[in-house]
């Protein structure tokens, strides 16, 4: 059954690809709108080989990396702290619940004014997009540790530190992994959206630039690059998560 769904899935994706390819080749989709996917692919390969986008790719990856790492660390620590302070948690709850309904990019100009143009506002945007997802999921994970696990730790006379490392964190692992998955996705979205909207370098900015320069080939190559990059990373996390969960018997 698994094999069948996998095959069907590949067929669906391939089918969509081929359909678009066909439509653009016969001119049903004008070149001015979108170039055929195969040409996007070729343009991407050429682009990567030529290395002229390497600077921008490096900038984006660095921005995402910093934003993500800080979001994961601070988000996790924040989650742990808030979990330990129920009153604080109750106060912050509405904020967490509404956070992702707010268009965070509206605060972008604020950061530019404070920190100037350049990478810092981009990193902050990525950070702000990702951190709350990590906090929320850390909180959920800690909530879901069954009380009986904590009692077991007590029966084994474990110190707090050992209990946390050996029992509580593994028990919360599933939710924390969800937090990591979301944080990765949101960090990319935050950084690239910020690069796109208000420049500063990076792939997002380059997409905007090539659009205005009518350089469709490079633009689509870059769009494809981002799609592939983000999808590969997220899919890897997804597969890793499933393995983790199956081992723990949660599926």
């Amino acid at each position: 059954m698994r094999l069948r769904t996998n095959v069907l899935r590949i067929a669906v994706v391939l089918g969509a690809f081929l359909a678009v390819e066909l439509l653009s080749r016969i001119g049903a989709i004008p070149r001015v709108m979108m170039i055929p996917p195969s040409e996007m692919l070729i343009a991407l390969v050429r682009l990567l080989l030529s290395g002229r986008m390497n600077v921008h790719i490096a900038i984006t990856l660095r921005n995402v990396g910093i934003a993500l790492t800080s979001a994961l660390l601070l988000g996790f620590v924040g989650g742990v702290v808030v979990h330990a302070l129920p009153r604080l948690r109750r106060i912050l709850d509405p904020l967490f619940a509404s956070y992702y309904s707010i268009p965070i990019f509206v605060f972008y100009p604020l950061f530019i004014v404070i920190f100037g143009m350049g990478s810092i506002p981009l990193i902050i945007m990525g950070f702000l997009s990702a951190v709350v997802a990590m906090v929320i999921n850390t909180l959920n994970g800690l909530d879901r540790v069954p009380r009986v696990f904590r009692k077991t730790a007590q029966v084994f006379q474990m110190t707090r530190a050992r209990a946390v490392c050996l029992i509580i964190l593994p028990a919360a692992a599933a939710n924390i992994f969800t937090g990591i998955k979301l944080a990765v996705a949101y960090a990319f979205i935050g950084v690239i959206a910020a690069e796109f909207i208000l420049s500063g370098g990076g792939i997002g900015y380059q997409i905007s630039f090539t659009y205005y320069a009518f350089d469709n080939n490079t633009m689509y190559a870059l769009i494809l690059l981002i799609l592939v990059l983000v999808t590969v990373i997220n899919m890897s996390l997804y597969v890793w998560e499933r393995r983790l969960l199956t081992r723990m018997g949660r599926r």
Partner: protein
Amino acid sequence: MRPSKPHTADVFILVGGLLLFWQVLFLLVGELAITPPLDTLLYAIRLLGRERFWPHVVETATAFAAGLAISVVGGLAIGLSLGFHRLSGEVFEPILTALYSIPKVTLYPMILLIFGIRMSAKVAFGTIHGIVPIIIFTMDAVRNIKPVYIKTGRLYHLDPATMARTILVPAALPEIVTGLRVGFSLTLIGTLIGEMFGSLQGLGFVLMRAIGLHDVKTIMAVTLLLVAFAASINTILLVIDHRLHERAI
């Protein structure tokens, strides 16, 4: 996540805390960067009183409403079909998750090329943001309907329409509402981002123009209006969401 019911006192503390933080930030970075809470509020009210401001609001509201309508109707239809048809649901689930994670802003130039610099581009952009979570949540809601409910329906010889109306919809409703809530917020965000480029009307455009002119007052005031709108609607939907999940076992 099921947020616990906030006590009124706590909400005041939170809002008070945020306002305080805002004021302190103003004292630190000065008026070239942000405007303090009271001034922002007053200016926002003034903006709302200006005749020239409203066409922008209407533009955004129209684009948002259209995008939302398509997201909701399309999302529910697709989500329900994928939910009921097991195989399709399984095949498409990772594809949808992947779609959810990609930075849709990168598709923006493509949307512009396809739709041109028009209302339809904004609507399209809003839709691609909002439709995906609605599909995912609706699909999950249907797949998670307890089989015993359907067996019970068969005991009473319910025809498909009655089965849907009296059992399937109420059972799936809590998760569907959560999806609609998320879809609402994301459609709004998508519409605003869509307005920031090549548009000559709309709140997104106003924002972009203010950024270009370094018009801090307008930036803050429009931001305040948008955040207030988004947060209040989300809170209302959250209350509904919460009530529905309270009854769920």
